[in-house]
């Protein structure tokens, strides 16, 4: 099956793909898999319950990429999917996920993506998930991603989760368990506008000796939007964890940021820093002194901040 222009445009917004890639992939369109293919080192198939996908990357496979985007163009659809990703021992893989919704109706379009990710011993994973919504009518575009990730001994994972624009409501949940010498970096970037709401709840359990985690959150709230960011680090072993949340507040928007540190081991080193504020006037002036208009300066600052 071929994707039409609208569907391809949505796919490009969330994956930067101009064409359908040739490697391992699963494209879910309006609640159904419309393209699915495995590669020699990545198997992509239905899970045992038939409620979603099971993606397995072979142990030791390196430089592997799998695309699993979701596109919704059917108004009023409530789509829920359960996906499991297993990155085999010593493998090095990239998973490109994400969801784009086009909703021109008055009905709600919603996608709940429930992901379980297991990064086996010594494996390395880069996971990218972009969310985007568009549409001319009042119908809400809702995205609720939920991710549970287990990082086994010596494994490394980086999760980059981005909400580009156009999502009315989102409730994001991320839970991570990091074993001995495992490492996790989460980069979350959220933009909300108008009356949009976004909640993000991140809980990281530093379970193993020498485990480490870093959470970097960048948020921009415009219009009358609202964002709530909670990030908890639970140090259950000698470990290192850091949460950094920066937010730019504009117009009459609101942002609430709640970093939480819980140390259950005397050698758990947990830190956090948080800052919420408007765009600094001196930043605007600096860019204007290079010839940009005030609006161009604002756009440049926001683009960089959310990059």
């Amino acid at each position, binding site marked *: 099956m071929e994707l039409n222009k609208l569907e391809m445009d949505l796919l490009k917004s969330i994956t930067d793909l101009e064409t359908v890639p040739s490697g391992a992939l699963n494209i879910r369109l309006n609640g159904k898999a419309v393209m699915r293919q495995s590669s020699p080192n990545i198997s992509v198939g239905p899970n045992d319950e038939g409620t979603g996908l099971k993606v397995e990357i072979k142990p030791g496979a390196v430089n592997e990429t799998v695309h699993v985007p979701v596109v919704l163009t059917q108004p009023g659809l409530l789509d829920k999917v359960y996906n499991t990703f297993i990155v085999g021992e010593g493998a090095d893989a990239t998973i490109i996920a994400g969801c784009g919704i086009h909703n021109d109706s008055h009905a709600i379009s919603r996608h709940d993506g429930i992901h379980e990710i297991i990064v086996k011993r010594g494996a390395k994973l880069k996971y990218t998930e972009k969310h985007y919504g568009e549409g001319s009518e009042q119908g809400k575009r809702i995205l609720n991603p939920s991710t549970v990730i287990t990082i086994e001994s010596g494994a490394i994972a980086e999760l980059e989760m981005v909400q580009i624009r156009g999502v009315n409501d989102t409730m994001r949940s991320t839970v991570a368990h990091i074993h001995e010498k495992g490492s996790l970096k989460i980069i979350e970037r959220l933009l909300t506008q108008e009356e949009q709401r976004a909640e993000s709840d991140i809980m990281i359990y530093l379970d193993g000796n020498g485990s480490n985690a870093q959470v970097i959150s*960048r948020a921009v709230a415009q219009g009358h939007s609202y964002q709530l960011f909670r990030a908890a680090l639970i140090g259950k072993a000698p470990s290192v964890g850091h949460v950094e949340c*920066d937010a730019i507040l504009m117009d009459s928007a609101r942002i609430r940021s709640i970093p939480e540190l819980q140390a259950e081991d005397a050698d758990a080193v947990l830190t956090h820093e948080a800052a919420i504020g408007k765009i*600094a006037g*001196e*930043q605007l*002036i*600096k*860019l*204007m*002194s*290079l*010839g*940009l*208009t*005030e609006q161009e300066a604002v756009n*440049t*600052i926001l*683009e*960089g*901040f*959310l*990059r």
Partner: protein
Amino acid sequence: MLELRNIFLQVDGESGEKVEILKNLNIDFQKGKVYAVTGPNGGGKTSIAKVIMGIYRQSQGQIYLEGEDISDLSVTERAQKGIGYAFQQPPRFKGITIQDVMSIASPGADLVRIRSFLRDVGLCPEDYLDRDLGTGLSGGEIKRIEMAQLLLRDPLISIFDEPEAGVDLWTIQKLLGLIVSRYKHNPNKTAVVITHNEKIIPICDEILVVDGGTIAAQGPPEKIWHLIKDDIECKVRNQCQGEVTYGVK
């Protein structure tokens, strides 16, 4: 080239009273010259630069650039007309790289050119181009990047606000060399260097001593520097009470 006519700058003081920062300033910055603006802290040097750039709006007076009244123009419009300012304390940005800001400074500049200007200020392009203009850079690095932007932008009038601040001795020599090679005897450009560094004085064509919001002394360095140097030093050390008349013994 750039004329300041009867410029006054008034700001609100801490208890709401009006404080006069600049008082009836009249300055002609001419093409082909390098100017040093010096004087005690709080005298009004940076305020002059910010009034020229449009960051501060003068309460009275006119500013002309090549005969055109630019007094009411915005910062953006003044930048587009050919005024450039290297900030004393440049702001930092998250997510904006050095390459990004250099490209904004000079939209048509290719990577070869950007690299060469970074090298000119003693920064290895390979190590810096992709770095954020954020907290990972030292004050001295930020200042050099600020200099590189202005040199690359190459406006009609370039104002360097304390280019030496936070910069090591070797780099200061390099920066001085750049100012001499690019502006000295360049018939189309003007450089204004706000400075506290005595080494910068001899490379300039003219010194302006700013104190108490006025031009306290002005002239070529070889004629007036030996007359005013001790007075500035004395004032800065707070050994003098009240007003100082620069150069009058």
